[in-house]
C-alpha cells in the first residue's frame, strides 16, 4: 500500500500530462487506488498549490471543471503568460511557415514526413504554428502508415481572396510526381 505522499506525487504526474480534465474515477483506475483516497489527496494537492509560496499560491492551480480535475494557470499570472504568448507568436508568418503552407496547399493531403522531404528540413513546429493559426488542419490518418494527413482550410482561401484551391495558379509541369519524392 502506498503512502499518501507517494499517491499525491503519482496524481501530480497524471495531471502534468493530461490535456483534458481527469475524473476521480479515471485517476483511481490509473493508480489502482480507492476512490475516496484519491479524492482526499487531490483536495490536499489543491490546498497545497493554493497556499504555497507563502500564501500567494503556485503559478498553477488545480480546478475541478466539467466533472474532472485539471491543472490551469493561476489567474494572477495572466500578465506574464500574455507577454510570453505575444513574444512567441509573431503576427506575421515566417518564410519557413509560408513555404510549408505552399507545399500543403499544392500537395494536400500530405503528411509531415512528405513535407519534410520536399523542404529538406523538419517541419513539426511550423506545421503546429499553421494549425494554431487555423490555416491548416489534420484531414485524416493515412490507413497504411497511420500518419496524419494535412490540408488547408477555408480561412486560407479567405485570406487569399479566392473561392477554391482550383484558383491557385498551377505549378510548373516539371514538378516531379509525389511518388518520386518520398
Amino acid at each position, binding site marked *: 500500500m502506498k503512502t499518501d505522499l507517494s499517491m499525491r506525487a503519482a496524481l501530480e504526474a497524471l495531471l502534468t500530462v493530461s*490535456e483534458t480534465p481527469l475524473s476521480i474515477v479515471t485517476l483511481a483506475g490509473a493508480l489502482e487506488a480507492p476512490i475516496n483516497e484519491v479524492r482526499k489527496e487531490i483536495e490536499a494537492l489543491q490546498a497545497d498549490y493554493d497556499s504555497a509560496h507563502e500564501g500567494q499560491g503556485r503559478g498553477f492551480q488545480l480546478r475541478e471543471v466539467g466533472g474532472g480535475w485539471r491543472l490551469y494557470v493561476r489567474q494572477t499570472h495572466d500578465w506574464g503568460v500574455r507577454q510570453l504568448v*505575444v513574444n512567441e507568436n509573431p503576427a506575421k508568418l515566417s518564410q519557413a511557415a509560408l*513555404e510549408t503552407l505552399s*507545399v500543403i496547399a499544392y500537395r494536400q493531403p500530405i503528411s509531415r514526413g512528405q513535407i519534410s522531404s520536399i523542404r529538406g528540413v523538419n517541419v513539426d513546429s511550423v506545421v503546429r504554428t499553421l494549425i494554431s493559426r487555423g490555416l491548416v488542419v489534420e484531414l485524416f490518418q493515412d490507413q497504411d502508415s497511420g500518419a496524419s494527413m494535412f490540408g488547408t482550410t477555408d480561412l486560407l482561401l479567405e485570406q*487569399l481572396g479566392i473561392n477554391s484551391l482550383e484558383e491557385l495558379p498551377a505549378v510548373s509541369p516539371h514538378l516531379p510526381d509525389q511518388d518520386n519524392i518520398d
Partner: protein
Amino acid sequence: MAVQLESEVDFQLQLDNFEGPFDLLLNLIGRHEMEITQVALAKVTNEFLKYVKGLDAKKEIDSASEFLVVAATLLDMKLASLLPQGEVVDSEDVSLLEARDLLFARLLQYRAFKEVASWFHSALDAESERYPRTVRLEEPYRNLRPELEWTTTTEELHDIAKAVFAPKQVPEVGISHLHAPKVSIREQVGIMVKRLKQAGKMTFRQLIGDVSDRAEFVARFLGILELYRIGAVGLKQEESFSEIDIQWQSKDVDQDQLAKLGADYEN
C-alpha cells in the same frame, strides 16, 4: 548472396548485413574474439578477401571501392609479413607502414563511433519514454495571440511554391574524402614523356620515384598503360614482381594523340 568462410565456426555472411568495409572487418575480428591488432588483421585477411570477391560491384558501387582499398591494404600487410625482415627501409616500406597505420586508425575510429552510437541508441530510447508536459494553450490565452497579419497574395504563394518545388541543386557526390586534389593523367603523361624522351629507357620504379601521393601514383600507372596502347612505349618485365622496364619507342608519335592522352579520364 552469401559467402562461405574458412573458419573454425562454420558461418555464412550476408552481404547486405555489412555497412562498409570497417563494419565487416570489425565483425570478422569480433568473431575470432580478438582485439584489433596486426595479428588480427592478418588472420581475417583471407576471409575479408573472400567477401570482397563476392561483392556485387555494380549493386554496391558506393561501397565497393572502399572495400577494395581496405582489401589492398590488407594484402600489402600480409605480403610484408611474409617477406624477410630486413633493415632496408625504402619508400615502398614506408608507404606500406603508413597504409597500415591509416587502416588501424580508421578502424579504431570506426569502432569508437560505433560504440558511442549505442549510447545514442539507449539515450534516444530512454528519453522517448519520458513525458514532458505538452498541454495545448488554454482557450482564453490562445485568443491573446496577435491577430495574423496576412500580406501574401495568391501570386506570391504561387511563387513560393515554385521555388520550393524547383529541383534542388544536386548535392555533390562526396569525393572530398578522397582528399587529394584532382590529379590529371594528361599532366602526369606529360611529365613521364619528357623524362622518357630524355632517358630513352627507365624502370617504372624510377618513373614514380618522386611520387608521394597515391592518386599521382595511380595516374602515372594509367598513363603508362595509355602510352603503351598508342604504341609510344614498350613494356618488359622479366618475371612477376620484378622491375618493369619502359622503353620510349616512338620519336615521331602523333603529337595530337599524345596531347589528348588521359583526357577520357577527366571530368
